[in-house]
């Protein structure tokens, strides 16, 4: 079965290449659906497949840029990408990332940075989970109240509406973002991007996990537009990351290409699946993914605190993440298949009705 193993010329390791395709497919589906790069899923996956950690991170970032571009292309055709908003946010993100990275170096000199960073990450992820499910709960209450008085529910209604308060702060220049349907001060998305970029820089993550909910709750993007816009930003920042990591010699392009084969298909499935799922469906799925990520970080924090448990908890974290990726991907594929079937059936019905009239 030697043909199932490909030699990676830069990393110098033999890798089971179907694993790369499967990983690419899974993260393509999830990334296209949530608007994420998915570093938290791919890096442990590549590590499990046999890549040294430095190559796992670099290869993941390189693949992330290509995969996000594929998803962005598809989302753009649906009208889910606000390029203007995304390009404005890139400035804030890059500034925040740079300052975050410098803060990390400063913290490193103080020592024990790993534990602080992981604890900070844990708190942030827990906060995002709380935010999403509180939002879902509030919307349900609004829906119930509307039904009680016999009023129709606004299809664009949301639970938590912090963005409404933030959008009222009209520091000039005030800009229109037509795709997102937002009118706000240009400083709002820049500030949000700066803060999320800074957090991503300090925590050493891509940032999609923080930026997507921020676009929804702080900027006020509809969920689908938040997903598409975030993906475009990930493609741009991922390319920057690919440049720096490949310059440091830590990218295995061959592996990134093999992953892209799976990701190209996965990204299409994940992106088209958003068409059949309502905004809050995406938010709930996202919340579940963040819970998984949160638990895996918790495993690492406990392992760091008590090294005797490290042998058990490190593989447990990897299994948890890969299991979650598999489960979420399969669920999204099922949603996609159901949606396609229903749409085709509806199309056939309409066609037969037209023919009957003739």
């Amino acid at each position, binding site marked *: 079965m030697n043909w199932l193993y490909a030699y990676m010329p830069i990393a110098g390791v033999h890798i089971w290449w179907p694993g790369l395709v499967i990983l690419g497919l899974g993260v393509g589906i999830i990334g296209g659906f949530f608007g994420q790069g998915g570093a938290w899923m791919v890096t442990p996956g590549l590590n499990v497949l046999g890549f040294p950690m430095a190559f796992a991170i670099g290869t993941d970032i390189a693949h992330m840029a290509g995969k996000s571009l594929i998803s962005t292309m598809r989302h753009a055709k649906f009208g889910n990408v606000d390029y203007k908003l995304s390009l404005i946010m890139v400035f804030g993100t890059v500034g925040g990332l740079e300052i975050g990275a410098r803060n990390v170096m400063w913290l490193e000199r103080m020592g024990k940075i790993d534990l602080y960073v992981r604890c900070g990450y844990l708190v942030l992820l827990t906060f995002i989970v709380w935010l999403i499910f509180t939002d879902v709960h509030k919307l349900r209450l609004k829906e119930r109240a509307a039904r009680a008085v016999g009023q129709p529910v606004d299809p664009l209604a949301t639970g938590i509406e912090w963005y409404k308060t933030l959008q009222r702060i009209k520091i000039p220049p005030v800009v229109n973002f037509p795709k997102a349907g937002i009118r706000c001060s240009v400083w709002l998305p820049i500030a949000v991007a700066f803060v999320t970029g800074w957090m991503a820089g300090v925590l050493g993550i891509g940032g999609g996990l923080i930026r997507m909910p921020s676009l929804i709750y702080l900027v006020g993007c509809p969920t689908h537009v938040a997903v598409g816009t975030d993906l475009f930003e990930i493609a741009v920042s991922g390319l920057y990351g690919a440049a720096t990591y490949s*310059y440091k010699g830590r990218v295995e392009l061959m592996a990134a290409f093999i992953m892209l084969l799976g990701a190209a298909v996965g990204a299409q499935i994940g992106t088209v699946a958003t068409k059949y799922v309502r905004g809050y469906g995406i938010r709930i799925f996202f919340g579940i993914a963040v819970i998984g990520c949160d638990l895996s970080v918790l495993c690492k924090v406990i392992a760091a605190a008590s090294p005797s448990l490290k042998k058990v908890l490190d593989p447990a974290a990897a299994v948890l993440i890969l299991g979650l990726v598999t489960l979420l991907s399969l669920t999204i594929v099922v949603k996609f298949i159901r949606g396609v079937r229903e749409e085709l059936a509806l199309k056939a019905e309409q066609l037969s009705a037209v023919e009957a009239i003739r």
Partner: protein
Amino acid sequence: MGTSARNAVVCAIVVALSAPLLRAAEKATTVVIVADSRHLTGLRGWWANLYNDSHLYFAIVTVLMIPLAGIILGTVADRLMALIGIDLKSRTLRES
């Protein structure tokens, strides 16, 4: 021997002993990971040699290849998806 003279001798010994370590540390910072291209031929051999010759060119080619591969694969996958027969140009924006 006075205290200051003793301190000077100790410092000299420490410096003399640590000099090889400092030189090793200098060398360690310039260590470069090399791709083993001896048994590689064709495209993989060229790629490994490019990596060994210049990380700058390696980075430039990587940054050009990634979006190119993304666009090509994305276009192919898009065409394949269109074969299913669903509407791929519009969606209804709905939150709840």
